[in-house]
């Protein structure tokens, strides 16, 4: 319940060590390679763990490559990402508009914000079975779940951003006779943008949870369904490869939003958000 984003503190490399990233990257790669080697040794050479339980990295890699060549995998991929995209776009539109409105209007903030806050901190995944009950097993229930899970962090962060807009900026704009919509567009919106993007970043992760959970509970297609099925069949190599696919997708999505944040709000200082909020 805070924009103290540890992402912000951790993500940018410390300026002092900018000379050294290669060294650390090599070290990281060496450690990862070491882990994979131990894993491979423990399973295929020393047989400490049965292969059907935890397949060696080589088997996982083979399954991964095989997966990428399967048309049903790509079908599932498109199914999941399409639902995710639709749900997220809706969540961003509604979240930013509601967040700005509630953040800007003291009356709305007082009357509506406590409920938004309560809904934000509610584990809404618990509502998933009801969504499937109401909207069925198809796309609609997944899109609705993505929306429901993603929208609240966006609202709350946008609201917080709108509240913390520097009053002297608003006053300066008013002095120059900038009012109403222009004030919102030229001052409030840009000042709020970094907060919204932080909310969107969290919303994407939660939306992903919604999509996969929807597929687990009412399997009609998608990556989650494929993963569930592989694990159910005890095709562990394929299941682990599927998990890697999800790890890659989730991290790419977050990286995309980080890049967007740098592009759209280059003035944005993470530390300011941390301490100034």
């Amino acid at each position, binding site marked *: 319940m805070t924009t*103290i984003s540890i992402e912000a503190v*951790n993500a940018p490399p410390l300026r002092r*060590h900018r000379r050294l990233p290669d060294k650390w990257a090599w070290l990281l790669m060496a450690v990862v390679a070491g882990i994979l080697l131990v894993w491979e040794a423990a399973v295929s050479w020393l047989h400490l763990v049965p292969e059907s339980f935890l397949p060696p990295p080589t088997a996982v890699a083979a399954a991964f490559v095989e997966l990428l060549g399967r048309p049903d995998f790509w079908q599932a991929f498109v199914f999941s990402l399409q639902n995710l995209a639709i749900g997220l776009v809706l969540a961003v539109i509604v979240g930013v508009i509601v967040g700005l409105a509630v953040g800007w209007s003291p009356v709305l903030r007082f009357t509506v914000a406590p409920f938004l*806050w309560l809904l*934000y*901190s509610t*584990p809404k995944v618990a509502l998933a079975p009801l969504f499937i009950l109401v909207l069925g097993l198809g796309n609609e229930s997944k899109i609705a779940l993505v929306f429901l899970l993603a929208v609240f962090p966006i609202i709350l962060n946008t609201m917080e951003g709108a509240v913390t807009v520097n009053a002297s900026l608003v006053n300066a704009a008013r002095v120059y006779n900038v009012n109403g919509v222009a004030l919102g567009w030229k001052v409030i919106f840009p000042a709020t943008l970094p907060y919204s993007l932080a909310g969107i970043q969290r919303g994407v*992760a939660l939306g992903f*949870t919604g999509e996969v959970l929807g597929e687990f509970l009412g399997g009609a297609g998608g990556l*989650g369904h494929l993963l569930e099925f592989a694990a159910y069949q005890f095709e562990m190599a394929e299941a682990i490869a599927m998990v890697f696919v999800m790890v890659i997708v989730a991290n790419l999505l977050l990286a995309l939003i980080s890049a967007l944040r740098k592009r759209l709000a280059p003035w944005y200082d993470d530390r300011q958000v941390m301490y100034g909020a």
Partner: protein
Amino acid sequence: MSAMSAIFASGPNIGRRGLASWLAGLSAGGRAAVLAVEVLLLLVVWQLVVGVWGLVNPVFFPAPLDIARGFGELVASGSLAANAAISLQAWLIGFALAVVVGIPVGLLMGGSLPVDKVVGPIAWTIYATPTIAYQPLSKAWFGFGIGPVIFLVTVSALFPILLNVAAGMRTTSPSLLRAGRVYGASRFELYRKVFLPSTVPFLFAGLRQAVVLATIGMVVAEMTGSSSGMGALIIKAANTYQTDQAFAAIFVVVIWSVSMTQVVSLVERWTAPWTRKARR
């Protein structure tokens, strides 16, 4: 927490009038009263729309009184107590494991640059992926039941704790450290008197985040891989169209999540009162 305070912040909208200024002028008790009236109003309208006028199918969205009845049924049949006990057990074990592992590893990351550079990216990659992705694996490995629930709670709660502690260590003000050294603080004293106080607010921020994520992990794991626990109870109730019971069970989970967050904040106020001022 900061969003909660944002509700009562004055905001940039200068020169408000009418209702806004009346609300702004209310005392804390007055505000609470207005909110209470609002909640009551909401419940009455909900009851009217669903229960009396029948505008919404009550199977999909039961009225407050139906939910209260569902709650009564769950209590009377004993299924609430049985499932809540199992969830509680899984949640507490998983959360304790996450704390026990997360804090030392976070401290290690914050204290040593090589550890940070190696563990950090790996931890971030795992943290960025919704833990639900690991659920089928944990079900295959730990079997149907409480095992995967504990696993998912632990994985959900571990990374916010670990990464926040590491971030807190790393953002310790260098000038404070220098001052400590100038006054001849030993290594231990530096940790005890400089690193610890500045890391604690981050730790509690991480714990609060972990509470929310752990509860999500618990519900997800129980819904998709267990026959007992609150998540399983919700699924069973929904699948048999007893949505009043499902909503009652969801309500219990919400209360649990919110109150655990409050417990973390309370512990913070007892053990680290200085964070109030620093964190705002």
